[in-house]
């Protein structure tokens, strides 16, 4: 074994991927087509935009070249920060938490081989998204500028050292962290840091108010604008070297200095990381295995709260268990931070939306927006439901035997999951709709309609998510994200979107009729009134069916399990 080169240790990863591809589960093809289609669509869109931009910049000669050069450096700089963080998180998993490590560490495998195999996995896992995104960008620039083969060689040869440098650095940070904290605690810290990073990025980008760029009066003068852009691109960063190497390839030359800097730094970082891991890996690994006394919050307030609720002991037990398990799992509750940020950005958009700029149409556009708002709030709700409610049954995991062997009717169990999911989502969706309609200044009739409609829609969508989650459980899933991305999760999203569109159609048309007659100060004719009532009844019926049928099917499915 000790004589085998390090790629031998990567064989199980390849074999597992091959076996997964061979043994398909129901719905795999549909999922692959959907996600593959989305992926190809995004890549095509990126390609088209970058191609068009590069093509346009060609008209500006020197300024165009300058902007492409600057753009490449900025692109590489963005990815450098992403890769540094991604490297830290991935290294924690590949070097310290991966299940196969116990086998490998116990086997007579030379430390250097173990390091190189783990490092190769880290580089691949941390950078595949960057490589996938860079592909269409570099291809579009090359094709728009009719670049020669040197450009493509430069692009490909820069990518590897460019990703190795931040990942090596990230791995060393992880090594340090694991030697200070236990690995599982470090994972929580990193998870939280990552989410805060994402949240601050989203909030910062929105609060920069990019829409101001469309307002010519507020644009700064061009020199000041470029001066601002240029300042963070420092020649000491690998992103600058990669940008320069690729740009010189685009010009038909070879920038040996920056290409050399990239490769030598990548090699040096790998050697340093290898030495650091040789020295400190085993102590970190050993710490990661120690079962430290788990720290957690008692959440006694929840006990008090649950006991004050007028529910049966069974319902109380299930509610308390679900809440405590959720709140003690950092990977679960921390995602609420991201959700909160998105909601803030969503509401902020309505706050700054300036519809008064459209003089005579303001009122009408506002009313149309009220329905767009209803649809958007429902989509947000569906996304929250697929992430938190749909996996509720699957989240029982291998411990589901406890419920199934207890004298608990599956009906009570599933209804408990429904109510636990419904209450927070109802509060969120009502708040979202009411506040955004207020910011928007929508007609009072539409504000009331929106609040009532979202009430029914929340019941329907939470019922759909709970019921479908029970019909398509994945008790062996490693995390809830996997459950949300399963065949059942995708089927839920498709049905949810169809339901939302149908509801919007059923509500928007009669509302427009009513507002039209009110605007003209006409009484609503009897036939139109009948249509409005019919649409209302259809909307209620559709919501009731969407809520009730999946719940009943879910209960039956749980009862017939095994």
């Amino acid at each position, binding site marked *: 074994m000790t004589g085998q080169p390090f790629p031998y240790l990567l064989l199980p990863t390849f074999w597992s991927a091959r076996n997964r591809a061979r043994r398909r589960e129901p719905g795999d093809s549909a999922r692959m087509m959907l996600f593959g289609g989305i992926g190809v669509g995004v890549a095509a869109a990126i390609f088209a935009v970058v191609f068009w931009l590069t093509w346009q910049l060609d008209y500006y000669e020197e300024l165009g070249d300058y902007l492409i050069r600057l753009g490449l450096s900025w692109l590489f700089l963005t990815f450098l920060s992403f890769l540094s963080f991604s490297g830290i998180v991935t290294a924690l998993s590949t070097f310290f938490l991966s299940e196969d490590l116990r086998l490998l560490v116990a086997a007579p495998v030379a430390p250097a081989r173990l390091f190189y195999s783990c490092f190769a996995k880290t580089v691949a896992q941390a950078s595949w998204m960057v490589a996938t995104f860079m592909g269409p960008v570099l291809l579009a620039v090359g094709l728009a500028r009719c670049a020669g083969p040197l450009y493509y060689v430069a692009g490909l040869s820069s990518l590897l050292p460019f990703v190795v440098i931040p990942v090596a650095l990230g791995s060393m940070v992880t090594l340090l962290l694991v030697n200070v904290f236990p690995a599982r605690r470090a994972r929580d810290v990193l998870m939280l840091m990552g989410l805060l990073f994402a949240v601050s990025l989203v909030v910062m980008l929105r609060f920069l108010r990019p829409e101001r760029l469309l307002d010519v009066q507020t644009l700064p003068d061009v020199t000041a604008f470029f001066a601002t852009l240029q300042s963070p691109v420092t020649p000491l960063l690998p992103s600058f070297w990669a940008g320069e190497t690729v740009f010189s390839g685009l010009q038909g030359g070879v920038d040996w200095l920056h290409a050399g800097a990239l490769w030598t730094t990548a090699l040096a970082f790998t050697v340093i990381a290898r030495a650091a891991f040789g020295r400190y890996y085993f102590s970190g690994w050993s710490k990661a295995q120690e*079962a*430290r*006394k*788990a720290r*957690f919050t008692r959440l006694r307030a929840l006990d008090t709260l649950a006991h004050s609720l007028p529910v049966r*002991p*069974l319902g*109380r*037990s*299930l509610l*308390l*268990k679900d809440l*405590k*398990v959720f709140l*003690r*799992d950092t990977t679960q509750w921390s995602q609420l931070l991201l959700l909160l940020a998105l909601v803030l950005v969503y509401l902020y958009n309505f706050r700054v939306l300036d519809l008064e700029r459209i003089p005579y149409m303001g009122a009408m556009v506002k009313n149309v927006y009220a329905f767009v708002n209803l649809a958007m709030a429902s989509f947000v709700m569906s996304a929250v439901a697929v992430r938190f409610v749909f996996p509720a049954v699957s989240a029982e*995991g*291998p*411990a589901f*035997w*406890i*419920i*199934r*062997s*207890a*004298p*608990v*009717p599956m009906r009570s169990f599933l209804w408990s999951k429904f109510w636990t999911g419904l209450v927070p989502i109802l509060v969120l969706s009502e708040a979202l709709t009411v506040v955004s309609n207020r910011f928007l200044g929508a007609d009072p009739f539409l504000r009331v309609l929106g609040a009532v409609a979202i009430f029914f829609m929340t019941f329907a969508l939470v019922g759909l998510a709970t019921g479908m989650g029970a019909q398509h459980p994945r008790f062996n899933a490693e995390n809830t994200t996997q459950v949300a991305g399963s065949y059942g999760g995708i089927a839920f999203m498709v049905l949810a979107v169809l339901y939302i569109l149908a509801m919007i159609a059923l509500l928007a048309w009669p509302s427009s009729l009513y507002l039209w007659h009110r605007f003209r100060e006409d009484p609503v004719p009897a036939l139109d009134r009948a249509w409005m009532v019919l649409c209302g009844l259809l909307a209620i019926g559709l919501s009731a069916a969407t809520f009730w049928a999946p719940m009943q099917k879910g209960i039956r499915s749980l009862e*017939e*399990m*095994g």
Partner: protein
Amino acid sequence: MILVENLVKKYGAFTAVDDVSLEVAPGEIHGFLGPNGAGKTTTIRIIAGLLKPTSGRVLIDGQDLATSAEAAKASLGFIPDRPFIYEKLTAGEFLRFHGGLYGMDGDGIGHRLAEVLELFELTRWEGELVESFSHGMKQRLVMCAAFLHRPRAVLVDEPMVGLDPRGARLIKQVFRHMSARGVAILMSTHTLEVAQEMCDRISIIQRGRIIARGTVEDLRRLAGGADEQLTPVFLKLTGGAGLQEIDEDL
């Protein structure tokens, strides 16, 4: 207390459990033995209400599991072979939750909880998260849960897996104590010494069918040997006698 009649479980063309019938009386410890893949765990999981049988009937304390599942399960405690529990709950919270599933609530549960934790030597771990427990501790916690609601019948799948000698002795004592108080225990195990030492009667299952049943004495007679140990009798009955010869040759 536990009555199983003509139980059959098929997975497509494969019959995992083939016409199994057994009865465990109150206070009896009934051993359920068989080679790997013989159908022990499948049978136990059907009796626990985790699997639906293809045909046959299971009655717990006179309640039919198919028609009165809740009533039947209320009299039953189940200890699975692998102790999967909610990792993010403390031992105390898990037991309170478990009690809630069986309708136990209010102040009464606190006293009972302290009793079972004391019984299985987990009192000082009551406030700790399950994720920090060893396998053996989790196994003992599952046993606490199984006995918490004072069941009249208990199903145990491989009780000694992962337990240290002290834990194993403790479990044996608890089972004997419970059996003396009238609890019926159906126990599947590979540890033949445990079966020999504890069980009043033993059923041996092979390829989904019960091939022998009785006391250790009965089985010994059936195998036609005078050995005192159960292992050679088991190997003879299940067709694994050759294994013992190989073992001796080695």
